[in-house]
């Protein structure tokens, strides 16, 4: 058996093992009937009605909790987030908090901007490159040492001197290697213009950071910590209710929980509390296209801690959701590598190999400024400092 066949067989063996393990694990999942019961209870009595009558919802939700518990599915209203500080206290709508300006939130990975339309320089990158059996070479969006790649979806790369490089056979035919090269972009195609050499996989950009958006509140921690709050409604359960209430208010695009690291620690944490940080440190952050005061008033009925509301003049959630699907079909137009929903900022991050100012302008005109943000993937040494990727 050839090495390639052996390795292809190994891939299929691992696939079979993955299937078996997932099947085994799925058997331990909660039942679909349980999910249905929970969803029906919440759907019929839950926060969706808060918009019309913010007071009435507390009674049916608590009643539903009792019913669910008595039918042995009481876990439906618990979660790892809940502590035992008990039921939500009566609302106190008199307290209000200031809203905050829309300040930038950091995004984890290198975040490089668009290219000027007249950019005339070259690009440099380290990337996996796969040569198909027909001789066409394409850049892979990732580094890979796995030969069972059916294909790579990046730009065509012309001028790779394969015979002078170390490469490995690909399962589907052709060969691949992880390479560092300089190239010029012409009509969506990369033409090699400089040295090409093998590099270790670890020098290739990793996109995993995009899944970890920094938990930064748009509001100042110290300022919020000083706001009047109701201690009886600063619990994990109250935060959870607050999030549910917030997303039900018209115009709200996103709500999330943040932690105020400036708050003075109190020794009241119990095992199981999230990240060892008590509820007294939490901030409920909300972005809305509507009236910030309405959000604050609604949230204050259930959550007694700090609230940070910021304005958002972009698309609502459903529209952005649809836009994500639309743009995913326009990959060639924007030289798209990936398209991510940045929930914290309620926007789409479109990773493009080489986005330009005019592309960004076009997206701004079509969908509103800030709805879709282009992120550049290829390095432009004449613009970026320091250049990425580093030499190994």
């Amino acid at each position, binding site marked *: 058996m050839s090495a390639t066949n052996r*390795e292809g067989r*190994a*891939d299929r*063996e*691992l*696939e079979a*093992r*993955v*299937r078996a*393990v*997932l*099947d*085994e*694990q*799925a*058997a*331990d*999942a*909660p039942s*679909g*009937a*349980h*999910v*249905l019961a929970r*969803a029906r209870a*919440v759907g019929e009595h*839950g926060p*969706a009605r808060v918009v019309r009558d913010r007071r009435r919802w507390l009674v049916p939700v608590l009643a539903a909790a009792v019913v669910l518990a008595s039918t042995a599915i009481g*876990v439906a209203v618990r*979660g*790892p*987030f809940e502590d035992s500080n008990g039921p939500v206290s009566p609302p106190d709508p008199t307290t209000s908090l200031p809203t905050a300006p829309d300040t930038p939130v950091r995004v984890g990975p290198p975040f490089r901007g668009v290219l000027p339309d007249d950019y005339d320089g070259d690009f440099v990158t380290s990337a996996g490159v796969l040569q198909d059996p027909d001789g066409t070479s394409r850049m*892979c*969006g*990732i580094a*890979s040492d*796995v*030969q*069972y*790649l*059916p*294909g790579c*979806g990046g730009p065509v790369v012309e001028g790779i001197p394969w015979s002078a490089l170390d490469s490995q056979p690909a399962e589907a035919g052709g060969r691949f290697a992880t390479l560092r090269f300089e190239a010029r972009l012409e009509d969506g195609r990369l033409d090699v213009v400089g040295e090409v050499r093998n590099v270790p996989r670890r020098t290739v950009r990793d996109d*995993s950071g995009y*899944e970890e958006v920094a*938990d930064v509140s748009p509001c100042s921690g110290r300022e919020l910590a000083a706001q009047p709050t109701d201690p009886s409604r600063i619990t994990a359960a109250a935060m*959870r209710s607050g*999030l549910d209430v917030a997303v039900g208010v018209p115009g709200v695009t996103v*709500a*999330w*929980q943040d932690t105020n690291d400036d708050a003075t620690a109190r020794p009241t944490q119990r095992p199981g509390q*999230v*990240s060892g940080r008590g509820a007294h440190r939490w901030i409920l952050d909300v972005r809305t296209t509507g009236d910030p005061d309405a959000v604050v008033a609604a949230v204050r009925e259930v959550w007694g801690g700090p609230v940070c509301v910021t304005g958002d003049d972009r698309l609502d959630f459903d529209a952005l959701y649809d836009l*994500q*699907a639309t743009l*995913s079909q326009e990959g060639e137009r924007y030289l*798209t590598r*990936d*398209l991510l929903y940045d*929930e914290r900022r309620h926007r789409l991050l479109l990773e493009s190999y080489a986005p330009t100012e005019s592309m960004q302008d076009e997206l701004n005109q079509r969908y509103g400024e800030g709805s879709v943000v282009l992120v550049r993937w290829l390095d432009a040494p004449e613009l970026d400092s320091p250049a990425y990727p580093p030499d190994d």
Partner: protein
Amino acid sequence: MGVEASRAPDAEAFAERHADWLARCAYLMTGDREAALDLAQDTLLAVWRSWPKVAAAEDPQAYVARMMMNALRSAKRRKRLSTVSLQVSAGDGRTRTIDPADPSRDHDAVEDRDALGRAIAALPDRQRAVLVLRYWSDLDDAAIAHALACRRSTVRSLAARAFAALRGQLGEDRTSYLRGRDER
């Protein structure tokens, strides 16, 4: 308008038909029963809220999978679920919680499947999602690409990376794994 008002009979039928799939898929995505219940519930509520769009989708299951992925991101941000703790069967009816922070722990003491289960649990969300949707849910790459809002090539890349990571976690390489089998 509440959720109930928009719940059509077709939506109810869809929910009943896919409830088990939702629950299991959510469990495989989160690795935690409570988190799975929350995720499946949130997804189902979103399905009811947006039923016309789900019904009109070319592949409703892929559309719902995408809703679940977005709900998962939302849940992680809201609850700060920094790790995945997956309960795996010990083979005797009991379960134990695995530690994705150290998937190689107790490698010698557990069966191969448990080690693989831990390695899957330790994968980044998108890589694990690709494995779940492709090998458990049997969605094709186009549907998975829709669910993850990416291109098919990205799906393939994520799968390749997942397999490379699994081999790394298991201490296997592609040739040594078969070498032992061939020599038997």
